[in-house]
């Protein structure tokens, strides 16, 4: 099922239902952004679409132009909360991939490895719709990143301390 979505007044897509879902989950598409697929009368806020998998049973045969061509309706978008059955909008889930790699390389401790492993799992879990799992992996990646950072900083401070004591004893 091909989906189109409106971003900053521009029509984007088509993307698969799973991709669209993960974009909404990751926050790339806000709950108030408009989405459309073949068979829908008009563009609707993403928040009103409850189930992307069951929203359309018919497999789209080719790409059909959305109504109104490239014209995206402006304004009049219902706020989340006014729409009945609005799913909970998820804040983007940080994957901590960049900090995890940085601490692995610069802190010299093996604790960066679990941080990278958990960080690498986050986006896959989000795209599969496992939000709880993604949040858990994100939390673990964050914890290991800080453990690695703390150990790296601590060992440098200890080293400086011993250097200072060594210099002091040498005098």
């Amino acid at each position, binding site marked *: 099922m091909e989906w189109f979505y409106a971003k900053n007044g521009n029509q984007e897509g088509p993307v698969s239902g799973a991709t669209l879902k993960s974009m909404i989950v990751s926050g790339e598409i806000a709950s108030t952004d408009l989405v459309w697929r073949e068979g829908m009368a008009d563009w609707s806020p993403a928040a009103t679409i409850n189930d992307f998998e069951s929203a359309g049973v018919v497999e789209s045969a080719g790409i059909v132009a959305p109504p109104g061509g490239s014209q995206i309706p402006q304004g009049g978008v219902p706020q989340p909360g006014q729409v009945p059955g609005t799913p909970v909008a998820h804040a*983007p889930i940080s994957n901590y991939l960049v900090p995890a790699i940085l601490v692995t390389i610069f*802190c010299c401790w*093996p604790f960066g490895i679990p941080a990278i492993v958990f960080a690498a799992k986050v986006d896959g879990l989000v795209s599969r719709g496992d939000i709880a799992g993604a949040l858990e992996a994100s939390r673990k990646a964050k914890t290991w990143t800080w453990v690695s950072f703390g150990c790296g900083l601590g060992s440098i401070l200890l080293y400086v301390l011993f250097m200072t004591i060594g210099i002091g004893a040498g005098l």
Partner: protein
Amino acid sequence: MRPRLALLLALGVLGLLGLCYIRGNDPEAGEAYFPRCIFREVTGLHCAGCGATRAAHALTNLEPGEAFRKNPLLMILLPFLVIGVVLESMAWVIGEGYRGPRVRLPGQLAWSLPVVIVAFWILRNIPGWPFELLAPR
């Protein structure tokens, strides 16, 4: 000023000062102070980041080939890391209102990155050709 922006700017200034220090002092000359790798001190082995300081010294002196010999994986990852740090810093400072791109790892690539880093960590400690090419030299 927002606290996160102030912290980021402070870290940026510290980072620039650090790069200036690394540029002006050769870690291999043994004259200036550089923190040593605790993993190497304890185990005698190279960690995945070993050679990063020397690579930074080479790179800030515009010797990319020399930097590559010190830590090849870091040099390959560096462009992605720089883009990643910029994007994630923006997302962190702006917070929930951030709508720009984030660093995302597609599901198929999820295991490749940890595997590559761990493999690099292990392989660069194996003596002899070709593994010695991965160690700082």
